[in-house]
């Protein structure tokens, strides 16, 4: 029998159907991570998502029927039929990051196709966010294209770039043009290591602009596949002048957030939590009393 008070036999799942990878996280009623899985196949691959779900279920020793509620997120969020609700990866990354590190105020998510900067409040709600507009420059896709141009494994580029002291500038804001810029640099005789370092500097410069749009608030956490790239993390820390907290499995933060939302929905806690903390009012100040100085003050304080 399911026991919500105990929590050990009550499960919810979060599924992140990203542009390049599928991720699933299962948590129990006490919001402890029971299992997770990350699978990569192709663009917004349903197969990768199903594989991740099956893998996470298997690791947890569960079947789909054991899952009380599922929330989906990511590019393919609307296509997952088993999900009771879908939410954007922005809300989910904020929630997941806050769960792992409740003090976090800024989340930088570099995913396959998007990069996002999210300002998070102490309850894990999104206060503000900025997202790369149109181009994939500065995203996982960008790194994959350039790693291919340089004939280097994606998993190696971080470590390799750390070996460089050179100051190569890759100016282009566009993935396609950056690729030709990289080819020119190769032709000029620059080493792969130096070019990789320049590439990370270019991305971190771009991310700094995105951070500026939201406003940098410490502490900062980085999530998404991009956080697994140590070279990029270092370049970003240098350009922001701040140390960045990296979770053990940065790729599952969105799915973790989705699993936490699933728990909230399944237990009916979501609204209750907000009412208790009076956050709803603070986030929608114009609803009833736009002139209320108290809530405006709260917002400015946050």
């Amino acid at each position, binding site marked *: 029998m399911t026991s919500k008070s105990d929590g050990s036999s009550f499960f919810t799942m979060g599924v992140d159907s990203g542009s390049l990878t599928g991720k699933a996280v299962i948590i129990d009623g006490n919001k402890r991570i029971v299992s997770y899985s990350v699978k990569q196949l192709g663009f917004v691959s349903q197969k990768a998502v199903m594989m991740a779900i099956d893998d996470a279920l298997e690791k947890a020793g569960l079947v789909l029927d054991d899952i009380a509620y599922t929330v989906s997120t990511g*590019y393919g969020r609307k296509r997952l039929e088993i999900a009771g609700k879908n*939410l*954007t*990866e*922005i*809300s989910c990354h904020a929630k997941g990051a806050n769960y792992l590190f409740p003090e976090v105020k800024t989340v930088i998510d570099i995913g396959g196709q*998007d990069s996002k900067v999210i300002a998070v409040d102490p309850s894990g*709600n*999104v*206060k*503000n*966010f900025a*997202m*790369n*507009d*149109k181009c994939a420059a500065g995203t996982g896709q960008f790194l994959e294209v350039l790693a291919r141009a340089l004939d280097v494994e994606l998993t190696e580029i971080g470590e390799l770039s750390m070996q460089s002291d050179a100051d190569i500038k890759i100016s282009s804001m566009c993935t396609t043009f950056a690729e030709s810029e990289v080819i020119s640099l190769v032709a000029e005789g620059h080493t792969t290591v130096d070019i990789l370092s320049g590439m990370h500097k270019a991305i971190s410069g771009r991310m700094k602009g995105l951070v500026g749009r939201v406003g940098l608030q410490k502490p900062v956490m980085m999530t998404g596949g991009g956080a697994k790239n140590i070279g990029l993390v270092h370049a970003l820390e240098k350009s922001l002048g701040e140390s960045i907290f990296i979770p053990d499995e940065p790729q599952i933060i969105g799915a973790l957030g989705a699993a936490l939302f699933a728990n909230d929905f399944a237990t009916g806690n979501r609204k209750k939590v907000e009412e208790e903390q009076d956050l709803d009012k603070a*986030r*929608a*100040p*114009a*609803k*009833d009393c*736009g*002139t209320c100085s108290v*809530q*405006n003050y709260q*917002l*400015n304080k946050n």
Partner: protein
Amino acid sequence: MYQNLSSDEILNKLAQIAADPYERAKEWKMETGSKIIGCYIMHFPEELLHAAGVLPIVLQVKEEPITTGHAYYPSYFCGPTRSIVDQAAKGELDFLDGFVGGDYCIQAVGGAEVVGNLLPKVNNMFFRLPVGNQAWTHGDIVTGLKELKRDIERFAAKEISDEEILNSIRIYNKNRSLIREIYELKSVHPSLLSSSDMLSIIKSSMVIPKEEHNEILETLLPKLQANKDSIKEEGVRVFLSGSFCGAPKNEILELVEQSGAVVVGDDLFHGYRYISDNITEDREPLAAIAAHYIDKNTNVPCPTRCDPKTDWPQYLVDSMRKYKADQLVIVMAQFCEPHMFFYPDIKDAMQEAGIPHLLLEISHELDSIETIKTRLEAFVEMAV
């Protein structure tokens, strides 16, 4: 002819007119043998053109990709100007007899020049609308109107009497009043009409004879009023701002609503900005039209008018409160300089007032709908 239709059916008809915006004008030309003048968005005294017995239509941005027009106008200029240049280059504006350009932004001036060259058989006119709001501004605008009146009279081969202008003002005022009534209904019952419906109403008004549009609205309005009590209201209340010259894309408007929001008000050019107030009927007509340009800018400030006495950011803060809106969504046409110039002030004003806002910079080619969808949904989730 619309009497037996339901409100949804009427709205569908208006959506069809809006989707193919020049078709009714072409028919009208065949029926009447009269002339059509295309107004190159945004501020034109349509009443004055109407008084000459011609049909003024506001040229519309088409959603199709720009192809032939690339040869005549650079890709880093705004979508609305590029789209109209493209239409002219493709021969789609050959049905026009006259064309009026304006100088409210550098891209519009350039675009009007190019269109003039591309349409050599079309009478190319210019409306000089001085900016600002100083002691001399009203008089200056009247002079601009007189210059245009002189050109229109030559074009239409007839003199325009004050009585004729006043009559046109009455017809246009009626149209604005009717649309404002619909706006009032929608602000109280936002789900009564989708924002795409509102767009169809305004857009169709810009491209067919106003007399016809008035008739349609007079039929539509009571039907909408009758429906209002059956509508369930739910969703995050959003105010839409921006989108000068060109209509915001239906896709974007639909995404706003699909994200869980209802649109409770707007200051779009293809929206409240177009009908925000009437021209006074008890004054010398050209003086009344000139005063209208100054007054309507007080109602809904326009960044191209450079009016030091108006404050667009503050207007937005006030509107959010007036319409009890939770969030502001700003739709900015990519490369729209007047809008870009004001955005930092709007951002500051919103932050100071504690109003969440989302800026969507929309390119004509709409290259990344998925990103826009995620941003809109995340924004609405912030308020749920």
